């Protein structure tokens, strides 16, 4: 059954959707403009604390992973991957990296944002995955651009004091490097303001996600995948807070008025892994047709919380660097099985989840190579039905819709039984 217009509500260009498109477009235009006017340009890995750049007068940042996700969502993933493969990069490498390398070494052609402005400094890190360091090294070698890597120790338990101090020291190096290279002075108060705004934005983000607890859910995880984009382009800004506040308000209003993305929701699912950017509309629509809604996702509920937690980690107004350092393990990849299980357990309870979809993603080993045990824990300890499907977050050539849906339908049958 094809989904009705009503079930596709999440993807209608409502106010927040239109606002999001405008915001992302403006962010990329602004990035290119400021870079052309002489701003100091850094390329960062997703979890690099972009709020720090708010402490400088004229530093702009671009996030290659985010740009790659955008390309995948707009359908140019395969053509850009193929370019990287043509330059000798293996098809087994992360598809974000291949998209980005394909874009960068072909002058931004086929990118919806015309690529990214050439960086003055590359800042990678090891927390989401240490391959980001290898990926950024590619540009460092090709263009001679300095590359600074942040090393964030993996958390098997909650972040240790010694690791926190180590991260703080590295922030010091990061700041002094930018000061030296850009000739700009770092202003801690300005950075504090950015951090305050990010903390507020994360609270609003969690308020938006909280509508997944409603039955039927006020949101789909696909909404959260799409709406997380400005966290990567507008972090530490007032416009991000305003956007998420309006998004949460608007969602509240829709729930109040009985408007739901999957009105005949019979199955409430949780998604574990990066979003399948090339499948957002197709997958959500087809699931909605089956009365299923992926209401929650570990990829988006982890934002703004400490490792293994759900609620946002609020800024106390003191040291902004300390807040950023403490949050460095928030995304799922830099923490272990027990912490991942703890957060997932919390969300399953809060949002009355019926089943979990583990998206085994060959482009992201760090996210995926714990899922078989995670799945065993959820199924055996919590008694929640689970399924594992094969995806690639950005390379549609490595995804089979029918194979995935055969398994998803089996999950729904299991839940129904």
């Amino acid at each position, binding site marked *: 059954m094809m989904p009705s217009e009503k079930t596709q509500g999440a993807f209608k260009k409502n106010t927040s959707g239109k606002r999001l498109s405008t915001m992302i477009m403006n962010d990329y235009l602004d990035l290119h403009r400021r870079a052309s006017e002489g701003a100091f340009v850094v390329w960062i890995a997703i979890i690099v604390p972009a709020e720090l750049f708010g402490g400088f007068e004229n530093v702009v940042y671009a996030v290659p992973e985010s740009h790659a996700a955008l390309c995948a969502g707009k359908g140019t993933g395969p053509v850009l991957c193929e370019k990287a493969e043509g330059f000798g990069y293996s098809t087994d490498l992360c598809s974000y990296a291949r998209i980005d390398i394909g874009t960068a070494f072909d002058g931004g052609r086929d990118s919806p944002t015309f690529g990214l402005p050439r960086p003055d400094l590359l800042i990678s890190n090891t927390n989401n995955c240490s391959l980001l360091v290898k990926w950024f090294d590619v540009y460092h070698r090709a263009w001679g651009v300095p590359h600074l890597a942040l090393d964030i120790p993996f958390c098997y338990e909650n972040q240790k004091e010694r690791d926190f101090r*180590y991260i703080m020291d590295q922030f010091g190096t990061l700041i002094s490097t930018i000061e030296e290279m850009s000739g700009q002075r770092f202003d801690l108060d300005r950075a504090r303001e950015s951090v305050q705004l990010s903390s507020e934005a994360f609270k609003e983000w969690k308020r938006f996600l909280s509508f997944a607890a409603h039955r039927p859910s006020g949101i789909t995880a696909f909404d959260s995948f799409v709406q997380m984009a400005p966290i990567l382009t507008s972090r530490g800004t007032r416009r991000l807070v305003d956007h998420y506040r309006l998004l949460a308000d608007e969602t509240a209003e829709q729930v109040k008025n009985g408007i739901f993305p999957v009105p005949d929701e019979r199955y409430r699912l949780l998604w574990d892994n990066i979003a399948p950017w090339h499948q957002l509309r197709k997958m959500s629509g087809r699931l909605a047709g089956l009365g299923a809604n992926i209401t929650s996702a570990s990829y988006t509920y982890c934002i703004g919380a400490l490792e293994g937690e759900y609620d946002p980690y609020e800024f106390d107004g003191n040291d902004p660097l300390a807040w950023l350092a403490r949050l460095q393990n928030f995304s799922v990849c830099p923490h272990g099985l027990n912490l991942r299980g703890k957060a997932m357990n919390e969300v399953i309870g809060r949002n009355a989840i019926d089943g979990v979809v583990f998206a085994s993603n060959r482009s992201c080993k760090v996210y995926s190579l714990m899922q078989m045990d995670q799945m065993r824990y959820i199924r055996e300890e919590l008694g929640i039905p689970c399924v594992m499907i094969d995806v690639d977050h950005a390379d549609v050539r490595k995804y089979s819709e029918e194979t995935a849906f055969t398994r998803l339908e089996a999950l729904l049958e299991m839940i129904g039984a």
Partner: protein
Amino acid sequence: MQSFPDSLADLKSQGHTLIGCFPLYPPLELLHSFGLSPVVLWGLRQDITHLTRSDRHLQPYACGVARSLSEFVLSRGRELLDAIFMYNACDTLRNLPEILESSLDRHGASIPLFRLHIPAVPLSRPFASDYLNERIRDLIGELEKFTGRSFSAQTFLNSTELYNRQRRLSRDLERLAETGRIRFADCSDILLSAGRMSLDDHISILERTVREFNGRAPGHQGVRIMLSGILPPPVALLDAIERTGLTVVANDIAALRRSYDYLPAASADPGAYYRDLYRNHYPCTTILPSADSRLETIMQTVRESGVQGFIFVGEKFCEYEYFEIPAVKRMIEAEGVRTLELEIGMDDALNLDAYQTRIEAFAEMLCHETRGSRRDNDAV
């Protein structure tokens, strides 16, 4: 040769306390100084052919090193290992400890596990060096509890000297292979056997072999090639390389040259020793701050060794290696060196015919070019 599990069973029966170390470059000297016998869990592919236990935990796109290591620990670990050690060598390995621990726990077969985080930023930065010191101190505390022994600076110094002896001899043996006095396949086999025997026994074997082959005349020199990768190719491929007229005169293999090329100064201070070792280690794709020096080192080796052909022995799904291959390839091809890329996965060990054909074709091309270039020189 005995299988890896049988070798460990022998060591156990001789009274060794075995600590299975995740690859690639664990702090062997420190573990040894506590009376433990560290064995690095790689190169198991020929002995671990079924992955029935590992496949319950890891998807098939994990590399063969991680999958065979997991299979070994889950199937024979409790019986053969007294402890496990891991450090943040790569993303796949950092995900394994809890997977293995929880599975072993469920089966009532727990094994003590030690972890270390080695800074992935330059150790020239004082805070990184301090952090490593702190982690080493913590590890020492844990080892003291586990072994019931106190750390001894003198014993540690002795261990560092022994490992340096092993490194020197390993380099000597490799040089014998470069001059054709010993086959590279045999040299590689002896070097890899370090993971199957006690340090003393391995040093004895190295000493005996180096002594024996040192006296021999240099062997026939074929076309000079270099190998690069995590592990050397399977013996059948090394045989094919030599049979087709190629001579391995240099390598950039993690389990070989990268492991023993740098000799840190022997020291009684573990902090200072490991700062030196990890800061100046032979470059490796998994030692992130060594990225710049890696290309320079490879280029220098290619030039100094007169390498004419370069074979990448890709470990399937090892993205650390694959991110660097295009840059290395471009660089050495610009020097006129021919390259061949092989990719060896977990399922390829028993099906090597296609690789042999590719090696034969590569060798044919190199030999043809070499003959052509000799004719040109003679004509001049």
